[in-house]
């Protein structure tokens, strides 16, 4: 079980690059977007689009999505009852803004790409140095295990 084959050095895998509205450590260039110039916003959005396009061309792009900041908490409330909804809770510490899924040959490559995405320009056209969370997907269990 696990990557216990003698060829276990290949780390072809999918990774999630997770971007947070809130909850990540503070970025270096931490000025929020509503205080940027129009050109700075345009440059930032273009950088993000170019990044995705580049990953499509390298055959490493799986998908990318952005999330609205406000959501609802939902839970089962017993047989025959409608689900209970609540929130949004302003005090929630961690708030996910969006993600990109990549399919790469190594962990090192995933780190490299996350670093590149974190360099997206912000205020004064300088890199944001935003913290992105990098999470590996579970893959299939390998066939050869002994």
């Amino acid at each position: 079980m696990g990557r216990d084959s003698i060829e276990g050095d290949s780390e072809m895998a999918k990774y999630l690059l997770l971007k947070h509205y809130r909850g990540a450590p503070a970025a270096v260039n931490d000025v929020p977007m509503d205080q940027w110039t129009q050109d700075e916003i345009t440059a930032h959005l273009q950088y993000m689009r170019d990044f995705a396009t580049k990953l499509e061309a390298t055959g490493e792009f799986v998908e990318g999505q952005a999330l609205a900041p406000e959501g609802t908490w939902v839970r089962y409330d017993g047989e025959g009852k409608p689900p209970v909804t609540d929130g949004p809770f302003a005090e929630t510490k961690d708030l996910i803004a969006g993600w990109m899924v990549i399919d790469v040959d190594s962990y090192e490559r995933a780190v490299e790409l996350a670093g590149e995405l974190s360099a997206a320009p912000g205020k004064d056209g300088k890199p944001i140095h935003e913290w992105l969370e990098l999470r590996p997907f579970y893959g299939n269990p390998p066939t050869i295990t002994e």
Partner: protein
Amino acid sequence: MDEALLRSLTPGVIGVLVRRGADFAAAEDAVQDALLEAVRVWPDDPPRDPKGWLVTAAWRKFIDATRAESARRRREELVDAEPEPGPASDTDDTLQLYFLCAHPSLTPSSAVALTLRAVGGLTTRQIAQAYLVPEATMAQRISRAKKTVSDVRFDQPGDVATVLRVLYLVFNEGYSGDVDLAAEAIRLTRQLATAIDHPEVAGLLALMLLHHARRAGRTAADGSLVALADQDRSKWDTEMIAEGVEILQAALARGRLGEFQAQAAIAALHCDAPDAAETDWVQIVEWYDELAELTDSPIVRLNRAVAVGEADGPRAGLKALGELDESLPRYTAVAAYLHERDGDVQTAARLYTEAAKKAANLPEREYLTRQAARLNRKSPPHP
């Protein structure tokens, strides 16, 4: 229509086009188009000579694709040259394609994708589905791979080891989509074994067969993993095991041991045992020693520690484990197992929980969590 036949003809047809002067990338595209046409046409109008039909259709598609003015001049030259079928045999073409698609300049994922398309005859969509990426992404991966090897001469001798590595990766991926990658890897390795006489090719084929034969026993009805010791061995495919053993014995008899033969030998010993207790663990440890010398892989030594635990008792296994790096994948899971065998249930339960957090896939995580839960019920953890 026989899709396996159609796909098995793929590398030979690409080879014919390349020998007629088409570059590999264009030839591969043309053959892929011809395969799609065959799927449409053959059910109603099966050809008498399937390969001849494919060569004709692919060549026409190649000519159609080279319509530019500069290309037309080239085309006239090519048409003049067409009657020369070239001296190379089908077998040589097939082998050259394996080498090209596993060229060391390619990343593992590119080599895998290119091999499945150009040698395996799978469509880009099928490969994309098997690896759970968008078709556009897979198309780009394949197109870049073709660009990477565009300067490689088709008749250059390649390295069998890189080909085997790629086939091993395909096999070990198992199957998650419509395409059974394990079965496809076996088909491609079998085809390679007919194209080249090499003990490690035979060794890898045997290894695949000896693992594939046990597939039905490896997962329960609900999809959860079943450990080797708990598998219902009546579910194993004895015919496939017999074939694997025969191929392995013939390879070993040639006296050129390699890592795949050694791995297959270990798999064969497992297949040979009526149950876990009657397994010849002493011999398995010896094979791991051979394997460790061949590969110097820490993962081999980890598996060896498990085998030592069975052959000489859990204390000996833990001692062998103690010499290894704790950060190895599955180290904690092995430690948990050996501690349970040694009777230290609480340590085992704690380690199983820890191992579950480090698991590389979901079925394994669930398996390890169940082990922890089973032991915690037996002996609740101290508060």
